[in-house]
């Protein structure tokens, strides 16, 4: 008995101490210096397992059933063996997903559905409530015992007097203060953990102290206690097991299993073991430290229990032996310590459990419900309040529940009820961790059925006992159905209550879980979660991107969203953490990062409101923004689905591919064959560890040369082998397939080893052909004495490798050839540009290039003479010159004495001598001091059939081949061509020179003046004759004067015009044209010129004119004209006097006769007088004609119709026509335009011509008069069919006084011509004697033009 006040004070003091510790723990965490991040702390925190139940109940159980109580603690010890795998997995998953309760875990795993979480919460709640209640009860009853020595009878005290009630309130406050100060997504409460650990230590201390007291204080030791119990008849069976149903092996087994389940899935245990864990590795300490703690704390249970029994305490008070013993044996302060220990145990359990379960309530019941009712916005700001209320509620519920339902039950049994209850979670939890096929329906079915059976078979009987239901339920079953009896379900009897419940609940639970899971298919979300859960330890790989988000919100937007739910600080911290994790700035994010962010936000939220709620909220948020998950096109889905290989094969293939890739990389690195070979050999040696490998390449003759090797001695490179068809090498080449040989095959395949080196045949050998599609290039060999046999898969691999090599070698060869071609083209091009170079420069260049392109060391070039008998050295390569020290190098070599290098000429083809040392009939050696020749190539340079030169190169490192011949030939040909062209050009230039000289001569010695001008008129050509004519010096004129100035004003324009007119000799031609040029002194010189337009490509570029000085001729013409005129005048005078004389004679004669014979015959006198008058008339007419001829008046031209005039004239002619029987034909052009003419004059002309025509046709004929237009002239023709006019007459016909008629004056045509000329026309006579005559008169259509 202790003073109430003391006890109360002690209690409060102790609680205050706990507060302080908790506060300190939380503060340290806030400062970042966690006091509990320590494996020992973690291990001891698990001691929350030991509640008042341990403290009091174990003793109670030991006193009643003996050793069986140990199973509760052995269970955890056994299951600790699995913690490093199982618990760690659970831990990993929960940490990754921010899971803080079991219901969240289940909800997340099984499709993020809320129902399962809610169900789990309900199960746990119902299982735990009585447990909480029992803690409260134990506190109050122990308090009472301590103070009153008696526990108060239940139900006797009103609530407000019940200490337990106040304790409940106190504990609620405690829980709120240290578990619900704020909403922490991680739900870690360091203060609480510190308290728990502290309390565990206090418990242990108290218990051990008591134990020591009892064992060694009250009794002489363990042995004594046990011995006395053994001897005690009523208690000795406590030392054995399996003596009855209450401690049968099956019962023990059940208890062990229950303990194994409870240690994980009691809410407080889950919280301490999983949620409060700071580091996975702490588990390693917990697995041994915790069982050790359990061992220690249970060491003294039996002594205390048995001691109590031995001291006579009633067994049904065994729960409180721990208090009664010290009290009754006079150790009240120890009792107080024990009380405090018990208090510790209870408070720890209640606080942690209430916090854990309230979190479950909020996350799995409240939030999903709120979302369902669309109240989440209203609820979220109040989440903390809700949580706190839940804590209070829970504790009070425990209190009331206990009061109402379990007042009489022993502590230990209540505990077992709870254990069995949380056991229902085990199948679902295990399935979540290890079974991918487990799905939601299975979990719900299992949990539901297990829960129901648990309730029905275990809880219900207690209700019945408490009086809530009629006892017949137990005895006869519900509705009288005996096989549904709660304690003998389906007729199963013989088991104790617990085992019975355990069996049925687990049977239905697991059975439903498995069968329903198998029968249904998980949703894609579940599958995803299953994969993530079950494979959490393999999660390190990147998952393929199969989905992406559309219109994903920005980081800021999401942060705001988070803030609205968990507060600004936490949201910002979370986002910062995410950014650090991702380490890429937002602008560079791809779909993968966005999905990660979505998941991260969801998980962060899940920590505060549970995964189911978080998922719904996030999805709601995203879809309200229009953001959706959509499938990503899996580009490789077809390939990956067609890959049917096992993981083993795939792994090997990846390894192969990585080696091939490395090889390909090295092969792409360089275009040079030695590098390529080294690359591949390097891969074989470094990556595959093959010590001996070689690459052999084929040359043109079919010999294999080792071009690269590893593990072979250097002289191997010299080996040249022609592979035998039977040998492995030969077979490999022929069949394009790899060959293998192993040491065991050796005796059989000895002949087949031809060509292979000793080192290669020591171990296993594989040969792979290096080939492209159709061409084999060589063989790749790999040999190893350590690797074992080469299998078919290896052969395929080597085939691939060799194939790659083949391709690369072929490409390298092609590129090499290309490069060489390029170089050659470059050289040839250079040569072609050397148009200004001398022959020496060209040949030297060609020589050097030839040496370079054929990779030779020396070279020479010699020209051949015309008859191909001697060679003249032209050029040597520089190195040849330097090295050769032969004195007196002759330049000319007769062909007969030349050795091999002359063979190229004699045989008229290129000669390759790859080994000068070998015997050769044509060899004639070379003089001492000459540079040593090891191998050389000589080619003849041909021009058509003719050899014009010989070129040679020598001392190439490798052998000369056709490619070199090609190079050299093309180069030399280019060179020769260039030389030839130069020579031809020179000849051409000389010829051109001569041509020009000759031309100049021609121009200047011409007797005519030659003047040429360009389009601007500038004089470009001006020969000496022109200079003489015009009085200028050529220098004054050339390039200075304009052609227009050389001509009389306006004359050049005329010429220009006429030259373009095709009428004057042709288009661009002017022939026989008279014009006037101007002498230097200003006088005009008449000239006769021919001109041509100069054209180039149909373009006028100038004009050339030949000019003849007409002055002399003109003078002569004038004189001739004058003398002609004089002659004509003379003739005219003679003619006139003659004409006058005759009539005058007649007149005189007859007049004299009349005078004489006046009186004579008057008739004769009349006749004679008549003759005199006629003669006088004739004279008058004649004189008129002469007169009209002399005073020829200017015609008065006026426009008139020619046709009209002709018709008029014809009328006058009619009589004459009729008389002479002449037909008249008129062919007058009706479209004749008006012409300018003097009608009088023209009439005269027409009359004249017509008269002549008529007189010509004195025996009749046809007179044809026609008019018309021809070009720009009007013409009229008068044609007759008379006697015609002979040629010699036609010449003179226009001369005055010339007449072919006896009576003609001879002036008619002369006058006509004058008239026509005055009209700027002309008369043309065409006549053929005997046929007829046609006279054509041309008149200008237009009026008088230029002067």
């Amino acid at each position, binding site marked *: 008995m202790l003073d109430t006040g003391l006890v109360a004070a002690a209690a409060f003091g102790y609680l205050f101490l706990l507060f302080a510790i908790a506060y300190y723990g939380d503060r340290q965490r806030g400062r970042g210096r966690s006091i509990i991040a320590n494996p020992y702390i973690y291990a001891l925190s698990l001691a929350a397992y030991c509640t008042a139940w341990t403290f009091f109940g174990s003793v109670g159980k030991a006193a009643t059933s003996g*050793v069986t109580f*140990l199973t509760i603690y*052995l269970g955890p*010890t*056994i299951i*600790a*063996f*699995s913690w*490093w*795998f199982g618990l760690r997995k659970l831990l990993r998953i929960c940490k990754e997903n921010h899971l803080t309760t079991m219901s969240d875990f289940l909800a997340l795993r099984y499709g993020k559905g809320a129902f399962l979480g809610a169900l789990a919460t309900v199960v746990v709640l119902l299982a735990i409530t009585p447990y909480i209640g029992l803690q409260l009860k134990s506190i109050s009853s122990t308090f009472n015992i301590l103070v009153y020595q008696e526990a108060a009878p239940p139900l006797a005290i009103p609530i407000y007097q019940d200490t337990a009630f106040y304790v409940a309130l106190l504990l609620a406050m405690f829980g709120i203060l240290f578990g619900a100060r704020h909403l922490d997504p991680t739900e870690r409460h360091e203060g609480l953990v510190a308290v728990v650990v502290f309390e565990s230590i206090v418990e242990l201390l108290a218990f051990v102290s008591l134990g020591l007291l009892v064992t060694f204080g009250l009794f002489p*030791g*363990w*042995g*004594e206690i*046990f*011995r006395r119990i*053994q001897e005690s008849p009523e208690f*000795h069976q406590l*030392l*054995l*097991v*399996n003596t009855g149903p209450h401690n049968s*092996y099956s019962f023990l*087994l059940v208890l*062990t299993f229950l303990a194994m389940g409870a240690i994980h899935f009691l809410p407080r245990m889950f919280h301490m073991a999983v949620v409060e864990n700071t580091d996975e*590795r702490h588990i*390693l*300490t917990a*697995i*041994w430290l915790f*069982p*050790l703690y359990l*061992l220690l704390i249970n060491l003294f249970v*039996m002594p205390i229990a048995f001691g109590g029994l031995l001291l006579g305490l009633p067994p049904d008070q065994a729960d409180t032996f721990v208090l009664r013993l010290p009290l009754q044996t006079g150790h009240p302060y120890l009792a107080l310590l024990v009380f405090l220990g018990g208090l510790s145990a209870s408070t720890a359990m209640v606080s942690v459990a209430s916090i854990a379960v309230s979190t479950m309530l909020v996350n799995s019941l409240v939030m999903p419900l709120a979302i369902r009712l669309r109240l989440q916005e209203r609820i979220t700001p109040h989440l903390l309040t809700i949580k706190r209320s839940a804590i209070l509620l829970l504790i009070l519920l425990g209190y009331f529940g206990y009061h109402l339902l379990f007042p009489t039950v022993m502590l230990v049994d209540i505990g077992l009820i709870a254990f069995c209850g949380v056991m229902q979670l085990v199948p679902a939890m295990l399935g979540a961790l290890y079974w991918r096929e487990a799905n939601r329906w299975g979990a719900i079915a299992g949990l539901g059925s297990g829960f129901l059976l648990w309730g029905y078979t275990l809880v219900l009987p207690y209700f019945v006992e408490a009086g809530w239901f009629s006892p017949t339920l137990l005895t006869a079953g519900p509705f009288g159905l005996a096989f549904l009896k709660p304690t003998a379900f389906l007729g199963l009897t013989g088991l104790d209550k617990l085992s019975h419940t355990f069996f049925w609940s687990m049977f239905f639970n697991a059975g439903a879980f498995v069968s329903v899971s198998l029968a249904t298919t998980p949703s894609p979300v579940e599958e995803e979660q299953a994969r993530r859960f079950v494979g959490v330890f393999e999660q390190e790989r990147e998952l393929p991107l199969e989905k992406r988000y559309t219109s994903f919100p920005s980081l800021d937007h999401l942060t705001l969203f988070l803030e609205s739910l968990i507060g600004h600080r936490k949201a910002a911290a979370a986002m910062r953490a995410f950014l650090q994790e991702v380490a890429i700035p937002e602008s560079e994010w791809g779909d993968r990062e966005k999905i990660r962010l979505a998941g991260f936000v969801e998980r962060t939220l899940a920590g505060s409101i549970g995964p189911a709620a978080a998922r719904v909220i996030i999805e709601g948020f995203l879809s309200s923004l229009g953001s959706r998950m959509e499938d990503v096109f899996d580009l490789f889905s077809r390939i990956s689905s067609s890959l049917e290989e096992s993981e083993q094969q795939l792994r090997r293939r990846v390894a192969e591919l990585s080696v091939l890739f490395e090889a390909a990389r090295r092969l792409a690195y360089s275009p040079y064959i030695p590098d390529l070979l080294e690359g591949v050999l390097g891969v074989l040696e470094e990556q595959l560890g093959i010590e001996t490998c070689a690459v052999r390449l084929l040359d043109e003759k079919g010999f294999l040369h080792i071009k690269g090797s590893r593990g072979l001695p250097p002289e191997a490179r010299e080996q040249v082998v022609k592979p035998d068809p039977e040998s492995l090498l030969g077979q490999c080449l022929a069949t394009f397939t790899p060959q293998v040989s192993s040491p065991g095959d050796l005796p059989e395949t000895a002949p087949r080893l031809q060509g292979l080196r000793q080192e290669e045949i020591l171990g296993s050998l594989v040969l792979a052909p290096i080939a492209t599609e159709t061409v084999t290039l060589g063989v790749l060999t790999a040999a190893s004495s350590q690797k074992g046999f080469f299998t078919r898969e290896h052969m395929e691999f080597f085939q691939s490798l060799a194939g790659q090599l083949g391709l690369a070698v072929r490409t390298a060869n092609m590129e090499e050839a290309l490069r060489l071609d390029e170089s050659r083209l470059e050289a040839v091009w250079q040569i072609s540009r050397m148009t200004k170079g001398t022959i020496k420069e060209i040949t030297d260049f060609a020589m050097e290039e030839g040496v370079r392109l054929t990779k030779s060391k020396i070279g020479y070039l010699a020209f051949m003479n015309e008859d191909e008998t001697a060679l003249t050295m032209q050029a040597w390569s520089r190195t040849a010159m330097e090295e050769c020290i032969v004195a007196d190098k002759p330049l000319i070599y007769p062909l007969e004495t030349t050795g091999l290098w002359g063979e190229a000429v004699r045989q008229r083809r290129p000669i390759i001598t790859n080994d000068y040392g070998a015997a050769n009939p044509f060899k004639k050696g070379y003089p001492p001091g000459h540079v040593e020749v090891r191998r050389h190539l000589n080619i003849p340079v041909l021009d058509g059939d003719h050899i014009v030169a010989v070129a040679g190169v020598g001392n190439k490192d490798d052998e000369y081949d056709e490619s070199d011949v090609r190079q050299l030939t093309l180069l030399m040909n280019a060179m020769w061509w260039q030389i030839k062209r130069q020579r031809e050009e020179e000849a051409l230039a000389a010829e051109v020179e001569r041509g020009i000289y000759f031309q100049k001569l021609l121009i200047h010695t011409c007797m005519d003046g030659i003047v040429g001008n360009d389009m601007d008129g500038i004089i470009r050509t001006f020969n000496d004759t022109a200079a003489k004519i015009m009085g200028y010096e050529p220098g004054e004129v050339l390039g200075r004067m304009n052609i227009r100035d050389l001509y009389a004003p306006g004359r050049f324009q005329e010429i220009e015009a006429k030259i373009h007119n095709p009428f004057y000799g042709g288009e661009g031609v002017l022939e026989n044209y008279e014009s006037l040029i101007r002498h230097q002194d200003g006088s005009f010189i008449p000239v006769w010129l021919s001109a041509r337009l100069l054209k180039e490509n149909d373009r006028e570029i100038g004009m050339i004119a030949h000019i003849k000085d007409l002055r002399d001729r003109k003078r002569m013409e004038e004189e001739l004209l004058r003398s002609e005129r004089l002659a004509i005048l003379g003739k005219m005078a003679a003619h006139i006097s003659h004409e006058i004389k005759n009539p005058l004679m007649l007149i005189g004669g007859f007049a004299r006769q009349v005078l004489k014979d006046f009186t004579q015959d008057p008739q004769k006198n009349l006749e004679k007088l008549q003759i005199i008058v006629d003669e006088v008339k004739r004279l008058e007419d004649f004189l008129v004609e002469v007169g009209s001829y002399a005073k020829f008046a200017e015609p008065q031209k006026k426009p008139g119709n020619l046709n009209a005039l002709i018709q008029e004239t014809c009328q006058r002619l009619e009589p004459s026509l009729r008389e002479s029987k002449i037909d008249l034909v008129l062919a007058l052009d009706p479209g004749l335009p008006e012409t300018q003419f003097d009608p009088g004059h023209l009439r005269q002309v027409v009359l004249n011509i017509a008269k002549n025509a008529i007189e010509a046709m004195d025996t009749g004929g046809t007179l044809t008069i026609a008019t018309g237009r021809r070009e720009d002239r009007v013409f009229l023709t008068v044609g007759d069919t008379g006697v015609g006019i002979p040629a010699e007459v036609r010449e003179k016909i226009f001369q005055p006084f010339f007449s072919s008629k006896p009576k003609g004056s001879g002036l008619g045509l002369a006058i006509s011509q004058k008239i026509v000329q005055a009209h700027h026309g002309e008369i043309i006579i065409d006549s053929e004697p005997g046929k007829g005559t046609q006279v054509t008169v041309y008149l200008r259509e237009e009026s008088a033009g230029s002067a």
Partner: protein
Amino acid sequence: MPAGTNKRKLLALLGILIFLLLNPPLMQTFNREASLGGIPALVLYIHLVWILAIAGLYAFSRSSSRE
């Protein structure tokens, strides 16, 4: 790691062993009225097995945390 999996197998083996030790066949052998130094056989047996379990767990923990 090969060493790791071997250790794990060993641990699992020990766990199963402990479990079996605390079950009928072997338990029964000690389930009699005998005692050693005053302590009943069963009690002693159980505690010894318990200590063995703790020792094994401790050994595993030590070697695992050394990696």
